[in-house]
């Protein structure tokens, strides 16, 4: 490694000696290109050097091959740095350390780089590989700069027997939290509900640590302020907003790992443009990492690629691109294998072009983001007529229609089948992105259709990273609602005009969205959760209907311009998108034919609604809502007018499930003749799942929420369940009565298992007999057919029978 400062006539200046910069410089040296590698810090790989001592550096994404002259395998930070030092030592790299770049100016055929030492360099091209760590994001709340509030963790062994709050559910936060366990009490706070932004490997390690009791987590929690307290053992008090309300956490130290943002002002000073005003937006780049300034290239974290392997690969590739060598990106092979399933699509470039051209939803993504998106997704080419999924299936993947068409078969409320055709560029399965919803329709493949299927986790990650996609997703969903509500004859431009004004709002359980008699100000679409519709009748509020996610309400009042005829309340935590009345009515006024059509349909609606508000069932609906059926996906009910109280249901359940019945027939509430036993509702958003240290509670693809053998018996789920349907139980052996037992009426004993072999008490709850062929034992064991299971979509139709 030569450390010199010859400055004239350099072809490539590489700024930043991190993984990307080093890889680029090494490649340039190998190719004999004149270059300079400029590093502000006195050492190379400064960010990795600042990693906590002994940190395991991972080589994600695992499936991506490495293409760099620097070697890289997952290992301890120290080993990695040593290897790199050795590999770089005997190479002819022109390195300039300890001299930050102050300006980069475009000149007629190159760049003038100013350094803080006062030197100037002229080069033909510049590769910016400075990462983000120079611009770490702060807490942004009062107290963010107090002592012991830190944004970095150097040596986790420095801290012993402290209470440390680690903020941030990304890789950095999770890794810091993991490193601090053992000697400290560690509380990990995540703004999100799930840990979607950390790597799979870190997520696994986090799970294990939580299971072992090393880390406490708080999700859906955001920081309000930090206060210094005196006279207490713990000098800091962290005030947070959690789902339970304001909470105070007293701790010795706060480590916030909130990521970093591009040093935007500096980059804009270089002439680089950003695609949006979003703070986290990354500069717009060509497929060859070139920015809008010709000759200025950006790689690594600054380009939106936070992983070391990506940066190493890009460092290598960018030099090849500058030299005009047509190298293929490292993920080429993997992507090609996926694209080859599409007929007549020989190259990845064409594939990516096809994605961009045919899927407007993903238009905001850069080429590089699209490539990453495709790495997670699968290409499907189902033959015409094949069912992709059925109504009421559980699924959590998202489908985009790259080519061809699919048919959506919906059963209308009047029982008629409606077929909606989706064409190229459309998407479906978006309800799968919400937790725990069944598919609302059956989808059948059309002619020569090509689908891209993306798993939920990847899609959520994408929604998180690219705000444009969430907006587009809502826009299309809303467009469907408007078409459904106003008919197909409205011009596309009018629909777009309506969609532009849409806003989103959130409601807590029981919160009123609008009241009976309120002015009709908007049309609402439920993005998440569900609502109940109730009316006043004889001074009593009676519930008339239940509406689930993906549907809309509030259109009646808008069309007729009359006050609300009902009160709508959130039945579960609910997010709605609303469309304001003004614009809506302006559009209708311009389209008299649409207004006529809508009004006539509205009158029909009034007629059918009058028929259904006899109020006969409203008490029952209200009762079932109070029992949590509104947030249930599948619930056991008992028709007490048939139930002979034999408790055969419980016996059958106990017999199949290690001697413990997973529900109690006697416990639970009754309304008229309908009884809701204390049995799992398989909630849409199961609260039992939230705080399970070993992550032992899952929802299967068929909908049931179940507990795996990983349960450690901590009892968190039991205390989190609002319906009291989880119990802690030991396995016992159920003895099957012999014929003699039956004839002489002898009692059967439940023998506990050999205490030496006992695994202690574990959480048990209904899993809808998921592993038992034939289905729910409780229902099958009922002699009079009193026990039955329903989901809320079906129970309203059952009510009318």
């Amino acid at each position: 490694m030569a450390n010199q400062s010859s400055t004239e006539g350099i072809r490539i200046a590489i700024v930043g000696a991190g993984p990307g910069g080093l890889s680029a410089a090494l490649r340039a040296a190998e190719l004999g290109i004149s270059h300079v590698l400029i590093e502000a810090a006195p050492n190379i790989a400064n960010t990795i050097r600042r990693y906590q001592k002994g940190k395991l550096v991972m080589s994600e994404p695992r499936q991506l091959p490495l293409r760099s002259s620097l070697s890289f395998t997952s290992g301890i930070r120290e080993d990695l740095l040593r290897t790199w030092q050795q590999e770089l030592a005997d190479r002819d790299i022109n390195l300039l350390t300890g001299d930050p770049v102050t300006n980069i100016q475009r000149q007629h055929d190159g760049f003038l780089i100013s350094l803080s030492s006062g030197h100037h360099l002229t080069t033909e091209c510049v590769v910016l590989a400075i990462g983000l760590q120079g611009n770490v994001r702060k807490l942004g709340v009062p107290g963010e700069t107090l002592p012991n509030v830190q944004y970095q963790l150097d040596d986790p062994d420095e801290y012993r027997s402290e209470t440390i709050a680690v903020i941030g559910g990304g890789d950095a936060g999770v890794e810091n939290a993991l490193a601090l366990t053992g000697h400290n009490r560690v509380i990990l706070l995540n703004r999100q509900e799930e840990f979607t932004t950390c790597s799979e490997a870190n997520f696994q390690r986090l799970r294990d640590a939580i299971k072992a009791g090393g880390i406490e987590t708080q999700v859906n929690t955001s920081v309000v302020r930090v206060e210094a307290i005196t006279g207490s053992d713990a000098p800091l008090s962290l005030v947070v907003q959690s789902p339970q309300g304001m909470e105070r956490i007293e701790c010795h130290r706060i480590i916030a790992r909130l990521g970093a943002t591009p040093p935007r002002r500096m980059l804009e000073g270089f002439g680089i443009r950003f695609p949006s005003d979003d703070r986290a937006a990354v500069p717009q780049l060509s497929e060859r990492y070139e920015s809008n300034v010709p000759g200025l290239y950006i790689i690594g974290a600054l380009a939106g690629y936070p992983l070391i392997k990506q940066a190493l690969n890009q460092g290598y590739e960018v030099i090849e691109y500058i030299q005009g060598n047509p190298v293929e990106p490292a993920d080429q092979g993997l992507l090609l294998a996926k694209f080859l399933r599409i007929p007549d699509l020989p190259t990845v470039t064409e594939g990516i072009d096809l994605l961009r051209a045919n899927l407007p939803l993903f238009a905001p993504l850069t080429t590089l983001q699209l490539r990453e998106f495709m790495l997670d997704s699968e290409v499907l080419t189902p033959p015409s007529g094949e069912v992709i999924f059925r109504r009421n299936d559980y699924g959590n993947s998202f489908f985009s229609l790259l080519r061809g068409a699919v048919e959506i078969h919906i059963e209308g409320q009047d029982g008629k089948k409606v077929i909606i055709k989706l064409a190229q560029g459309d998407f479906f399965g978006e309800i799968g992105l919400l937790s725990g919803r069944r598919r609302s329709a059956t989808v059948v493949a059309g002619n020569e259709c090509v689908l891209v299927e993306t798993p939920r986790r990847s899609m959520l990650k994408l929604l998180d990273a690219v705000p444009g996609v969430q907006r587009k997703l809502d826009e299309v969903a809303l467009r469907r609602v408007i078409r459904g509500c106003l008919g197909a004859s409205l011009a596309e431009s009018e629909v777009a005009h309506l969609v532009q004004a849409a806003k989103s709002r959130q409601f807590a359980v029981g919160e009123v969205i609008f009241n009976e008699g309120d002015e009709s100000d908007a049309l609402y679409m439920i993005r998440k959760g569900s609502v109940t519709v109730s009316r006043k009748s004889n001074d009593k509020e009676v519930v008339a209907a239940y509406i689930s996610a993906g549907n809309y309400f509030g259109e009646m009042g808008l069309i007729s311009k009359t006050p609300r005829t009902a009160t709508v309340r959130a039945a579960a935590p609910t997010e709605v998108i609303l469309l304001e009345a003004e614009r809506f009515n302006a559009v209708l006024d311009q389209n008299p034919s649409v207004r006529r059509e809508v009004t006539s349909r509205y009158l029909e609606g009034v007629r059918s609604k009058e028929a259904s508000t006899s109020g006969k069932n409203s008490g029952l609906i209200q009762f079932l809502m109070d029992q949590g059926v509104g947030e249930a996906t599948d619930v056991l009910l008992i028709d007490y007018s048939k139930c002979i109280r034999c408790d055969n249901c419980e016996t059958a359940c106990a017999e199949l499930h290690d001697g413990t019945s997973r529900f109690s027939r006697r416990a639970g509430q009754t309304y008229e003749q309908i009884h809701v036993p204390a049995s799992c509702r398989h909630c849409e958003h199961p609260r039992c799942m939230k705080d399970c240290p070993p992550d032992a509670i899952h929802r299967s693809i068929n909908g049931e929420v179940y507990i795996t053998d990983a349960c450690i018996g901590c009892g968190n789920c039991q205390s989190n369940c609002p319906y009291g349907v989880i119990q802690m139980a030991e396995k016992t052996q159920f003895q099957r009565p012999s014929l003699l037992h039956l004839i002489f009426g002898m009692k059967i004993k439940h023998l506990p298992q050999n205490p030496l072999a006992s695994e202690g008490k574990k959480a048990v709850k209904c899993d809808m007999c998921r592993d038992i062929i034939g289905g729910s034992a409780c229902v099958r064991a009922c002699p009079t057919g009193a026990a039955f299971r329903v989901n809320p979509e079906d129970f309203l139709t059952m009510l009318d029978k």
Partner: protein
Amino acid sequence: MEQPSFLAYRNYRYLKITGLVITAALIAYLLARPAGGAAYGGTIFGYALGIASALIVLVLTWYGIRKRRPPKVPERREADRRKFADTDATRCQSNRRVINAEESWRHGTTLQGWLSMHVYLGIALVVLTSLHAGFRVGWNIHTLAYVLVLLVCLSGLYGTYAYLRYPRLITENIGEESLDDLLLKISEADELATHRATDLPSEVKTLVSRACRDTRLGGKFIQQISGRQHDCPTKLAVERLRELGKELVDGDQPRLIRDLYTVLLQKQRLVDMVRKEISLNARMRFWLYLHAPLSIALLAALLAHILTILIYW
């Protein structure tokens, strides 16, 4: 939202089957009507009816076993269980589980279906055995078996009626309460009443202590069924207290009487509720104490009947 009854199971599937069986038996009987009063059981049709009836008896008894003894631990989807345990979060739809239709048919029988069949075949059995006997009776083992069939079926018919009628009445009577809760409330009422009676004349104290001590809940079979107690002390106390209220008008007495009266009224309501609960439950269940032993007796008599025929005919 109420569910169809077990009689209507699968759109009256077993009613239809039973109708066919009875029609076939009647036609057979008319075709081979025995001339001159010969024992009908001895003809070829008689044998056929006898064998059919015996088979039906076996099927009907099997229900009793099936109900009390759940089927052996069914096949489990072990492989699935493991495969789906950990991958839920990231998996694509493409490899979802497909439930095998045949599998669910084989393992999907419900006890409700069994009960529906049990009831209808039981009715068919009455007709079949009557025809098999050729309406002839005598003092012998054959007639014993026939009578037992009739008794078992009669008790079963009552059971069908009870299962259709009483569950609804039980819910209407007791609602969300449980028997244990009611008994607890009654004993609380007793304590309160005793406490409130302390400053009242001894006649009142006696009334209250008798109401606490001698009010009977449940009791012998007939008492349970009737749901009443002759001269129920609680009822007497309530009635007598109303009369005494007119006489005891000194000082604090009217208020004390009123308080006591409220408690006793409450207790009376609770007592009525408990008695009705016990009575309805007894009416819903007692027949089974006849039905089950009688059917075991029937099995024995049937065995004797068949053996006798094989040996002596």
